[in-house]
């Protein structure tokens, strides 16, 4: 009780009108404030290890929370389906969980409200596989990351997604930071990070000729890497579907029926389903899903981040290092972000970002000139010659942060057949393979209480993606084209992608038919002209293969590209 009094005093000193109470072992905040940053600050003040979590129900004055974005489809396609496990959310964690579940003889399905997987944060991040040097020793983030980090060579080969072990550089602009060398070395040892190396300013300048001349030295951590985050998500999804899992796109959870501490049914825009276990991998909506399941003990406060991608010529100018400036990290410690950096991506581009802005909008994926400039200015600390004209595209994603700023991986507290895989933010992508293993184990253990769960004898961990022909030798390419002439017809000129590869993408186990879905799978539309030349051709291929009229094909979601014909009908 006194613990709550302490928290209450702290909060009321700054926000006298806010009510602080205890609910189900959590600290609950109610009331109204004028400013979102204040609401977040109050929530942060409520974090305390003697309580389970923070229920921040403070309302923002004059703000109406936008309705969840969901498909206009409304039917009974999945109505009445019985499942062993239902996974809510088609991000990297949800898809990885589904794939792990297909190792067993279970009826499993995943629901995703968008028209493809990886449309949320999983498709809108910098793809970095983190080292963990900045993570707190006792956090779940660190524990999961350290287990997952070494797995990527094998995993990327098994599931055929792009990964490179780039190593991570942290640069320092002042010799005073060298004092921290021993501290960082000991932290690295404590966290289980190996191979930390000292890199001289001279060596750094050789590797990156246009690096800030003020850079004195850097630390190099060999365990850093880069993946294609949506490529990895799609790979998991494809493998899950190949092994019998179902993925229901355009399907959004609208409500749940909970009775006597158990979820009985889950309502969606495509019918009511009956799962034995429900897994919450719903990203920015994880607390809302938990609320529906009568098992909420955390609150998501969304935090958006914007990244910019530089043209490939930038690698010649700035080098191919994944690097960030230490000063940035300190500046941003309060914002719970590393301050971003420069990432060398699997596609041979440089990426800069992200920034971190608290927002009440869970789906604020709009880019802004301010965010682009913030990221540019920050990364000019390390690469002073960075220029807006280097940027070829940009995107924004929203982190699903809890106030405790750590993962929530556990069985439900009040609802017995509910599993949380929530609060996933950096290093969520990196940790996903192991989060998935643990969550799948939890679900299987729960099911085993009622009846035996057998292993899927037909489980095949290997998944083959689309072969990228442009990186093959002339002879190998010729061989493939002679077998399938579609491989010789280039559709995306900027990225050199053939008709055959686009058709292969359309034939992957998880079937999509949006232009953006193809873009995520084979990069058609991601080059210099950003789809200017290839979009009409990609549309034609989708139309022919799926036997769909042009005006029924979308760029993404319900966003049709063609609104009608010029002649004839209508």
């Amino acid at each position, binding site marked *: 009780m006194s613990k709550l009094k302490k928290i209450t005093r702290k909060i009321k000193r700054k926000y006298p009108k806010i009510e602080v109470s205890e609910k189900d072992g959590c600290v609950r905040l109610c009331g109204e404030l004028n400013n979102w940053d204040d609401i977040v600050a109050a929530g942060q003040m409520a974090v305390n290890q003697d309580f389970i979590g923070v229920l921040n129900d403070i309302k923002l004055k004059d703000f109406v929370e936008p309705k969840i974005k969901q498909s206009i489809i409304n039917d009974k396609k999945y109505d009445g389906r019985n499942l062993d496990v239902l996974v809510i959310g088609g991000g990297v964690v949800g898809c990885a969980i589904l794939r792990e579940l297909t190792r067993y003889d279970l009826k499993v399905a995943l629901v995703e409200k968008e028209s493809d997987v990886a449309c949320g944060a999983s498709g809108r991040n910098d793809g970095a596989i983190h080292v963990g040097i900045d993570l707190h020793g006792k956090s779940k983030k660190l524990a999961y990351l350290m287990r997952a980090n070494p797995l990527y060579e094998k995993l990327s080969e098994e599931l055929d997604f792009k990964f490179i072990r780039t190593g991570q550089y942290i640069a320092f602009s002042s010799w005073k930071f060298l004092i921290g060398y021993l501290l960082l070395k000991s932290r690295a040892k404590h966290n289980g990070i190996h191979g930390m190396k000292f890199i001289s300013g001279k060596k750094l300048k050789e590797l990156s000729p246009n690096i800030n001349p003020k850079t004195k030295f850097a630390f190099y951590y060999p365990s850093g890497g880069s993946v294609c985050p949506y490529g990895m998500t799609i790979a998991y999804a494809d493998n899950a579907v190949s092994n019998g899992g179902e993925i229901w796109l355009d399907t959004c959870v609208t409500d749940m029926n909970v009775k006597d501490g158990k979820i009985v049914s889950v309502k969606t825009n495509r019918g009511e389903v009956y799962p034995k276990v429900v897994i919450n991998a719903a990203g920015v909506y994880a607390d809302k899903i938990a609320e529906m399941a009568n098992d909420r003990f955390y609150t998501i406060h969304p935090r958006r981040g914007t990244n910019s991608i530089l043209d490939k010529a930038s690698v010649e100018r700035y080098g191919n290092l994944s690097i960030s400036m230490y000063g940035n990290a300190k500046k941003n410690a309060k914002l719970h972000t590393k301050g971003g950096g420069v990432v060398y991506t699997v596609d041979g581009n440089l990426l800069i970002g992200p920034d971190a802005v608290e927002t009440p909008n869970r789906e604020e994926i709009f880019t802004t000139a301010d965010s682009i400039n913030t990221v540019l200015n920050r990364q000019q600390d390390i690469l002073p010659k960075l220029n807006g004209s280097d940027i070829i595209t940009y995107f924004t994603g929203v982190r699903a942060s809890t106030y405790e700023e750590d993962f929530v991986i556990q069985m439900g507290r009040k609802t017995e057949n509910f599993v949380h895989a929530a609060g996933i933010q950096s290093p969520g992508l990196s940790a996903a393979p192991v989060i998935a293993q643990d969550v799948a184990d939890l679900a299987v253990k729960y099911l085993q209480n009622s009846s035996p769960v057998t292993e899927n004898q037909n489980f095949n961990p290997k998944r083959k993606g689309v072969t990228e022909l442009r990186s093959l030798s002339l002879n190998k390419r010729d061989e493939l084209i002679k077998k399938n002439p579609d491989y010789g017809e280039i559709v995306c000129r900027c990225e050199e992608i053939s008709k055959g590869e686009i058709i292969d993408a359309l034939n992957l186990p998880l079937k999509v038919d949006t232009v953006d879905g193809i873009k995520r799978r084979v990069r058609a539309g991601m080059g210099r002209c950003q789809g200017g030349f290839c979009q009409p051709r990609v549309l034609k291929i989708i139309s022919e293969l799926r036997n769909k009229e042009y005006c029924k094909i979308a760029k993404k979601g319900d966003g049709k590209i063609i609104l009608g*014909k*010029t*002649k*004839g009908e209508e």
Partner: protein
Amino acid sequence: MKELICIVCPNSCVLSVDEKTKAVSGNKCSRGEKFALEEISHPMRSLTSTVATVFADCPVISVKTDGEIPKEKILAVMQKLKTIIVEKRLKIGDIVVSNIADTNINVVATKNI
């Protein structure tokens, strides 16, 4: 006095026409004078567009009027073109619609199918 811009060639001369005396000034050539007088009495335009076909390899074929038509008939011509479906593999210059919208001008193909 009416001011208008000549559209006959890229020079885009700024012309002045005295509606009473029909005197034209500002033109660099005789085509400009002719254009100005026409423009104030019955403006004419050439029209280019497309027309639907039955051919999958060429869903629409580009066409043009083989002369100028009255500006106020453009809408009528477009409405008529909307209803045409070409069923023969035409050559450049082949007539698609003759005397379209009573203009005495034909619409011809500008592409070989």
